[in-house]
Structure formats: C-alpha cells, structure tokens
C-alpha cells in the first residue's frame, strides 16, 4: 500500500466559498459598509498627512457639497452629467462593446456646438436659430465619433477599446486646431461666447441640465428594458452566434448602438457648450468619459442604480475639492483624487466579499466532529 505522498505539503489556512444566497438588501448593506470603511480610511490618511480632525473632514466633505445653495446645485448638476455620460455608455457596455471614447464623443459634441455659437454668432443669427442648429450638430458629431470605431469593429473586427481610446486624442487635437485657428489673443483661450445660450428655467442655471438628464434616464431605461433594439443588443453582447442564429444583423446592431451611445455623449457636449461653459478647451470633457465608466460598472449597468453611484462620485469629488482641500489647504488636486481613490478601492473590493465567503480550513478532527453533529 502506498505511503502518504510527500510531494505536496503546503496547506492553505482558508478557502473561498461562492455565495449565492445573498439578498439584495444584504448586498446593499455590504456596499454601504464599504463606503463607511473607505471614508474612515480616508480620514486616517488625511489625519496622518495634514493632521486633519476626522470630524472636520466629514463636516467639510458635506459642506463642500451642500454648504450653500449654489454648491448644492453644482453637486447635483455634476451628478446629472456623470449619470448622463454613464447612461450614454451602458447600451454599448451591455453589448460588450467597451467604449472608452466617451471623452472624445463629448468633446466632438461640444466642439460642434461651440462652432455653431462662434460662427453663427459672428454672422448675427438670432439665438433660437443658433440653438436649433447646435442641437443636431452636436448630437450628430458625437454619433459620428461613436460610429467610426463601431464600423471598424463590425467589418474588420478591430479592437474597440484601443480604437475608441485613440479617438479621444484625435478629438482633443481637433479642439486645439480649432482654438489655434480662431483665437488670436496671446492667452490661447476662447472667450465665453455671447450667442446661443440655453434658457435658464425660472432663473436657475442648473435645472435645465438636470431635467434633460432625467429624461435621458427614462429613455434609456425604457430602451434597454422594453424595446426590440435593447433586446437585440443584449443578445449580441451575450453571444454573437446566437444573434446570427436568430437572424439578428450583428453589424447593424453594433453600429446602431454605438451611434446612440455617441449621440448621447454628444448631447452632454451640447449641454457643456450651451448651458455651462460657453467656451471650450481640450479638457472640457473633464475626463467624464472615464469617470462615467466607473459610474456604470459600479451600478452593474443598471440605469437606476447609477443614480446612486453617480451621486456618490459627485459627492466625493465636490466635497473633496471645494470642502476638504480648501479647509486643510491642500492645493494639489492630485492628493485629493488619490484620497478619494481609497474609497473607490473599498467599493470595488467589497464586490469580492459579496460574491465569496472566506472559510477557515479546519484541522483534521473538526470534520469528524461535524459528522457527529450532522450524521445520525
């Protein structure tokens, strides 16, 4: 009879068990817990770095977001914009088309709108006519920027992540070229345009953006859940072969979905141009195309869950920038971002604990003890 095999001696002290039994509210509690742990870790780091009192960090975080009526509106508008970009991305993401080009698509929409404002404004068009031209141009520009990589993906099977990413740089380059052509002053910045401003609802400059995004939210929810297109794109995302088997035109689905994705990004660019900035730089998209990827992933591509994730990210960003950093004299924005990153890490890490349970490996005897309990 063989002796015990000596080849393998190491024994791990624990093992992982997949969980299937977690309820939605338990998962929610886990995620909230992760936010709390993340915030505490953040306080710890700030305490070490700038000797910040944790209570003061919290109060500044809140006051940075909601300290004044204006700040509250700014926070909610930021949340709405992030949500809007996230909503633009999820049709593509659900099709497993990894659109990393949100920035470029926003920027192209922005650029198209600004060009309308600049040239038509100079030509003396009435405001309403300029706005009527801005809307389709911005949406079309975003859609084109989304469709180009989709066509290459559909017909030549190029990698969409790289392609969309590169398109961001081209878009930024185009903005720089435009600025170089029209800005004659030495500063290199385009002055705020006077023509083509969107209306403010009841004197409130923020409400328009928020309402438009709310409409987009409703549209995307219905599109994904109840429309034939939404159903098709999900089939394509799960299995291209099944899509072909059932007679779905896969190429057309890819192109169509990316046109939608790009068009919605273009809409965000339009809002940046016509309702917020009235000018453009190569950084106008503020990396929202990337931040919104996080909004979408954390919410597992669920439009309504994205309300929560976009709020969280807007809250942390604004609270850090206009609250904590100001209060503790942190002038370097990167430090604020790194500290926020701690919270994100915790949120991402908790997914592991939602999916798996860690169990200790018992020494040999425990199994037989269990046997006595469990057996007859």
């Amino acid at each position, binding site marked *: *009879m*063989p002796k*015990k*095999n*000596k*080849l*393998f*001696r*190491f*024994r*791990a002290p624990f*093992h992982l068990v997949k969980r*299937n*039994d977690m309820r939605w509210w338990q998962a929610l509690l886990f995620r909230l817990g992760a936010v709390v742990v993340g915030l505490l870790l953040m306080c710890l780091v700030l305490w070490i770095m700038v000797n910040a009192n944790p209570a003061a960090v919290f109060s500044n975080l809140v006051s940075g977001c909601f300290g004044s009526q204006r700040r509250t509106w700014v926070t909610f508008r930021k949340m709405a914009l992030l949500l809007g970009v996230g909503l633009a991305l999820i049709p593509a993401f659900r099709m497993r088309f990894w659109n990393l080009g949100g920035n470029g698509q926003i920027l192209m929409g922005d650029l198209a709108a600004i060009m309308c404002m600049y040239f038509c404004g100079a030509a003396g068009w009435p405001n309403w006519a300029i706005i009527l031209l801005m809307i389709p141009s911005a949406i079309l520009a975003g859609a084109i920027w989304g469709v180009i990589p989709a066509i290459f993906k559909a017909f030549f099977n190029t990698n969409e992540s790289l392609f969309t990413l590169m398109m961001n740089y081209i878009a930024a380059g185009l903005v720089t070229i435009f600025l170089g052509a029209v800005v004659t002053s030495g500063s290199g910045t385009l002055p705020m345009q006077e023509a083509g401003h969107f209306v403010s609802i009841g004197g409130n400059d923020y409400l328009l953006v928020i309402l438009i995004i709310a409409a987009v939210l409703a549209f995307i929810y219905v599109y994904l859940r*109840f*429309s*034939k*297109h939404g*159903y*098709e794109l*999900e*089939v394509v995302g*799960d*299995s291209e*072969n*099944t899509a*072909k*088997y*059932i*007679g*779905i*035109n896969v190429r057309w689905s890819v192109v169509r979905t990316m046109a939608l994705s790009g068009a919605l990004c273009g809409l965000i660019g339009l809002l940046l141009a016509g309702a917020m900035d009235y000018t453009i730089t190569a950084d106008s998209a503020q990396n929202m195309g990337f931040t919104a990827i996080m909004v979408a992933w954390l919410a597992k591509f669920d439009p309504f869950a994205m309300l929560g994730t976009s709020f969280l990210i807007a809250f942390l960003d604004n609270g850090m920038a206009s609250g904590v950093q100001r209060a503790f004299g942190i002038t370097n924005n990167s430090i604020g971002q790194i500290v926020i990153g701690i919270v994100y890490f915790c949120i991402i890490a908790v997914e592991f604990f939602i999916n798996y349970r860690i*169990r200790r*490996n*018992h*020494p*040999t005897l425990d*199994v*037989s003890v*269990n*046997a006595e*309990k*469990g*057996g*007859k």
Partner: protein
Amino acid sequence: MTETRLPYLDLEHISKSFGPVHANQDISLKVFPGEILALLGENGSGKTTLMNMLSGIYRPDSGSIFVLGELATINSPKDAYAYHIGMIHQHFKLIEVFTSLENILLGVPHNKKEKNNPDSYDKGSAKDAKKLVTKICQKYGFQLDLDKKVYDMSVSEKQTLEIVKTLYRGADILILDEPTAVLTPLETERLFRVMRNMKEDGKSIIIITHKLNEVLAISDRVAVLRKGECIGSVNTKDTNELALTEMMVGKKVELKIDRDEPIHPTPRLEVENLCCRNEFGREVLHSVSFTANSGEILGIAGISGSGQKELLEAIAGLQRTSQGDIYYNDYDDSEERIDLKSKSAAQIRNLGVRLAFVPEDRLGMGLVGDMDLIDNMMLRSYRSGKTQFVDRNAPAALADQVVKELNVSTPSLHTSVRKLSGGNVQKVLVGREIASSPKVLMVAYPTRGLDINSSYMIYHLLNEQKKIGAAVIYVGEDLDVLLALSDRILVLGDGEVRGILDARKTNKSEVGLLMTKQQSAPKEEQEGAAHA
C-alpha cells in the same frame, strides 16, 4: 465483494448543501483497490459534487472520508494528490499552449535523486519525467506524443494526457467524470482497454456516466445516486439495464423508442450537390445530396467532425455554401419551391420557411445564457408586433407551458438559463423550437449529457413532430438510438454522403463500417478537436 477487505476509500455519511439545495445527503460509499466503480445517476443527482469533495474542490458539510482506514482531510486538489486521489474532469484542465510534457510537469516540484540508485528519478525535471511518462504509457498502453501542443490535440488525446498526468502525480484512485461523452465508439473502446490495464495494476477507478451499456461493459460495481442520496450499490454481474434504470429514476421506465410508419411522406427539403468550405478554405462538405421527407425522421450518423455541423448550419443559413442548392417545399401552403441557398437566417425566416434548429452548442448558439427563460423564449418571437417594443406576455406563457410540459426544474421563470443544469437547458431550447410548429426540425446531439428520462422525453417529442408531419433531421452519436428512432439513416464521412440506409433494415455494424470507411484517422481526430 467481501467486506473484510480494507477499502481504499471509505466515504461515511457525507452531506453537502449549496444554500437550500441538498446536493449530497448522508452518502456512504466504499471503493476497493483494483476495482472499477461506476457512479450512476441522473442529471443533478450529485455525482460530480461527491467526486469534487474527494478531489478537494468542495468540502463536505459533514461526514468523513477515510483513505486506507485513516481519516483524511482534503482541502485542495493538492491534498487529494497527497492521498493519491486524482480526478479527470469533464472539462479538461490543460494549458492549451503547453506541450503534453509541460502540462504533466506543471506544479510538480523537484525532488532529490538518491545516489547510486538507477531507479531514482527527479520527478520535477523534464528529462526524467520523459522517461517516467514513457514508462507509464508503455505499462498501460497509452498513446501520447509528449512534444505535441495541447491545442493541436483531439479530445481523445487531451483525455489521455489528463489521465497520464494524474498517474504521473501518483494517483492510485482515478475519478473520471463522464469520460466517454466526447469520444467516438472506437476511442471509447481504447479508453476501456486502458482502464482495464490500470485495474489489473491495482488502481481503483471511479467512472461517472449516464450510459448504461458502458456501465455494464466496464465496471465491477455500480453505485446509484438519486436526488443526492445513495440508493445502493450492486455488483455489475448481478444486474441489468432495466434494473439500473429503475434504481436511478425511482420508478419503472420504458426503454423503448416508438417508431411508426411515416404518414404520406413527401419531399420537404431537397439538398443537391451541396459544397461548403470552412473559414480556412478546406472543403468540409463535398457534393452532399439528400431529401428529407415530411413525416419522417432522417438520422445523420458519422464520426464527429464529418460535416454534420456545417450541413445543418448551411441549411439554417448560418454557413456560406460554395455550390449546390437547398430547396424547401411546403405542399400544404403552396406549390412553390423555395431555394434556401446563400440566404441568411433572417431571409429564410422572412420567406415564411418554418425551420427550427436545435444546435449542438446550446448556450453558445441556441440560447442566451445570461437571460432568463422568458427572454430566451422571446428569441424566436420578439420581432412580432408592429411597435418598437417587445411583448413579454406571450413568451412568458410559452415559458410557463414548456416548464410544465417538459418538467424543466428551475427556481422560477426569471432564472437565467446559464444557472440551469444541462438537461434543463436542452429542454428549454427544444421546447422553444418545437413551439414554433416547424415544418423542418433539425436537432444536433439533442440528448448529449442528458439523463435517461430526459433523453426519452426528447425522443418522444421528435416522434410527435414526425407524426404531425414535420421533416425531422436528427444528428446523433449513439448508433443504437439512431437505429431505433430514424426511418432512414444518412451516413456522413469526411464531408461526403457515404450512404443512405433504411433504418429498419440495416444494423449497427453496417452503419459503423460506412462511418469509418476510407477514413484517414489522424485527420479525423484533428477535426474532432477543432470542433470541441
């Protein structure tokens, strides 16, 4: 078996639950040295769960495992090897870009050679491993090319590699999880020869399988599991197919496939000189001609990779054809012959051709794994209605009907099909395809991986479709079933029609001979690997 012998492996009161599901309940089982134990049970009866506990992938909730009389703790596959237990999984665990030898060596640490002992080897070194592996191969009669990359291997070669790897790591008890599911009859015979050699050498083997004839052919003892409980074990020589089925299912089962005479067969699908090239430009179908009649089941036999998949996909509009025609006639509706050649699946549908297709790859082609039952039912019907919105009411009713009529076990209609077991996935797919009341029904390996009850239910469903006048094309691998179910059998070999036989008059050896005639073996095997 005399109970006085010391069992190699002794499982006592093993239980394991996944949430509310009791996968194994109080199972006790013994395995003796030098015996082949067949573990028999329907889908979801807990066979694989039990074996995964032996190989260290799961841990039992309660109960104990004794190896050679000693209490064993198996927390990982490494621990399992320490107890000389090795498992060959249904889905192979090999590194595709490595050679056989590299796969065998992976994770085996070096050990010190004893000086002056020519029989002492360093198991971790490639040079010594080569010698040792060659020895193992000679001893048991394996054929294995040590320098071949895994991606170049056929399914059967990969399996051989898995077994040799397990033996090299010192396993004395081998667990084979449905090893014959992917093998041709010839390869199965070869495997059984090797298994007998290993048994003679004193190794114990546990084989998990559904196929009763194989159980009777290879095993010494059979243990039957039903719904997570061990119903009992019997000596193979004291039992027969019917008795085993009864133990497995828990009630008497009729192992008979009905075959009525076709009613008014008229040509429904006429395939003429169909030629087809695969993406690498190799001819996979060569001048295939046949007619499928209404009210008839046409069986297609052939070694896997002989062009069955391409033939069905060409008819369904999923495969580009280079030559030939496919005509569809529906004399009930019109006199018109419709040419399906070079039409896409969507075009064929829009022509009003009622063609249903149950592809081989259920989750990869027929269904959407992450969608629930209702949305999967909707795949065929979601286009109906003039609005841009989908209607989920009719698919929900259909899903409910399929679940009830075909006994699909699912927690709810909102469960994603990926979470269902193989048999239930197949029932969902077949149910949906039949619900479209097809004129032509094509099924590829519909009972692969299904238990007896489900298999016979599928045969019954095919017979029903035949009765109401559908032309059924059945691609199968089990010749016994093909002979019992079909009216005519078309034998494919190397992409050519080797013959069309009357299933009532032919026999297994005639079909088998046609299948293997003029076949260049290595090429065939590669085809098998490519499609696996």
